[in-house]
């Protein structure tokens, strides 16, 4: 299996020892794309004159499509059973995944059109590609996940896998009134109970508004995720 990180600071390599992690950036993907289309000689000339910037600006979405094209190429390489992509955040995920459709309607021929066609095919085929939405058990993230889910299904036409609810604090209710009112133990218990109630309520609401199975990940204390905590999370991965 392969994990793909899009532009940004590489962090997953550190968290996933022994797992193949590849960085993809739009500019590198575009350069590679040009090379493989026999334009290696002009690529340098285009790059040196800043033309690639202009192409990307003049034809926004082209950077998204070459990244998606590269992902499709990895998927088609036969080297991996599974390619996991750490995609952009909700609002931009829609723009990113819509790039194929947008370009198909605006570009009527040429290699980019072919690329967009291939990517659109991959996105539409649930045996090849599914989207895992990740959210938190709170009102705003849940609303956003629901909206994003509908947009992805209706506008992008991609299949949705189970939704992941991350950092869920679950557990039995604490008997807060065993401690005197206003005491630290009482206040801490009331806080914890309230947080757990919010998480429970939002998980239920998510289920009501989005007919997808949920995978629940427990909250991890501390500031630093480590390879060990990722391992522990993977063990606790529990269908709800």
């Amino acid at each position, binding site marked *: 299996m392969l994990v793909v990180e899009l532009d940004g600071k590489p962090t997953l390599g550190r968290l996933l020892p022994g797992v193949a992690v590849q960085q993809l950036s739009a500019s590198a993907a575009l350069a590679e794309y040009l090379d493989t289309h026999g334009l290696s000689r002009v690529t340098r000339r285009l790059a040196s004159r800043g033309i690639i910037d202009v192409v990307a600006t003049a034809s926004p979405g082209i950077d998204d499509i070459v990244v998606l094209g590269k992902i499709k190429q990895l998927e088609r390489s036969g080297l991996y059973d599974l390619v996991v992509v750490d995609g952009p955040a909700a609002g931009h995920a829609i723009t990113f995944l819509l790039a194929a459709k947008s370009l198909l309607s605006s570009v009527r021929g040429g290699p980019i059109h072919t690329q967009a066609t291939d990517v659109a095919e991959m996105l539409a085929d649930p045996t090849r590609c599914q989207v895992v939405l990740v959210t938190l058990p709170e009102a705003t993230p849940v609303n956003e996940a629901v909206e994003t889910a509908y947009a992805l299904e209706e506008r992008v036409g991609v299949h949705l896998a189970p939704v992941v609810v991350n950092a869920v604090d679950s557990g039995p209710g604490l008997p807060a009134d065993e401690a005197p009112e206003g*005491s630290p133990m009482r206040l801490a218990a009331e806080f914890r109970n309230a947080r757990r109630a919010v998480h429970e309520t939002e998980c239920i609401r998510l289920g009501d508004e989005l007919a997808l199975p949920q995978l629940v990940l427990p909250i991890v204390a501390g*500031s630093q995720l480590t390879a060990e905590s990722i391992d522990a999370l993977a063990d606790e991965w529990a269908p709800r």
Partner: protein
Amino acid sequence: MSAAAGHTPSPSSGPATGATPDTAPGATPDTAPGPAADTGPTLAHHLATAEVLVCCGSGGVGKTTSAAALGLEACRLGRRAVVVTIDPAKRLADALGVPGGLGNDPVQLQVPGDGQLWAPMLDTATTFDGLVRANAADAEQAERILANGFYRNVAGSLSGTQEYMAAERLHALHNDPRFDLVIVDTPPTRNALDFLDAPGTIAKFIDHPLFKLLMMPTRRGMKVLNLAAQPLLRTIGRVVGGDVLADAVAFFQAFAGMETGFRRRADEVTALLSSDVTRFVLVASPRADTIEEACYFASRLAASRLEVGAVVVNRCTPTFGPPPARRPRAAARAALYDNLLELRTNAGVEREQAAALLQATGVPAGTHTTWVPTLPGDVHTLDALATIRGLLFD
């Protein structure tokens, strides 16, 4: 759950000394500044003196909530504030508890204070259309551009435009006499950088040799085809598809004469973002990834000779005061004791690690930092926002 983290606090290393203060009972905000904090101007100072406040940080750190709470405080201070979200998702409407959502025109919210609080939602296409109309020589030129297929794609759905239009909107709101403070809720980090880069991108684009080449024909009747026949453009056409190019060339030709207006506007936006009436507030949570994103942003600001005005760390585990001297025997009370201790330990570890990360990864020493505890309930009503406002400022 504490077993999963695999961390223990190291009491000897400095920054966390203020991490587990024995606060008075209640989910008291632990706003005691970290050791690196406090010499710089406070959030309250920025709020009172800035004309533009930009909140930036990664997703899921309560950035929108912070922006909205800053708006509440601004209103309380008697300022006429407008909070604008450029996040494509409708977070701000949620955070402000506006049931019908927000429109492109600012609506005034009913909140306490001598000032006013307004909120619009950014509608990229409408903003771009307005900009084209404002800069077109006549209605005919505007319509030609608005009808162009390439333009519709750019304005409607493709990435990059959103950030530029956000910068444009920010500028327009700053110049709007109804408001004396614009609070901006940026998208998650990577896109927020685009937002800062956007005016520059447009200026660079307009100054680019290719654009000049496209704009060169001054004689009327010069055909798009002639341009597209140039070797360089043919090469690009091979790469991106001839149709994109033809539409793009048509768009740029229709655009002729407007570039001066656009460039002046882009320059003004850049000047506004880099002037001292604009302040940047980094928002993070006590999670390493969000702090690293915030610090990455700090370094990008520094590269553009901009500075971080203040830091807000949201969603900190609250502390509730010291536990009893010994663990109770009765199971029920022991569970309460364990819970108090667990939260307390988590809060300490979290604060220590977060403070160390902030110091280690590039937020300038002395930058004022506010630590905001997680609320027991969810923050999606004006009442809850008012509580956050209190935690930030009282």
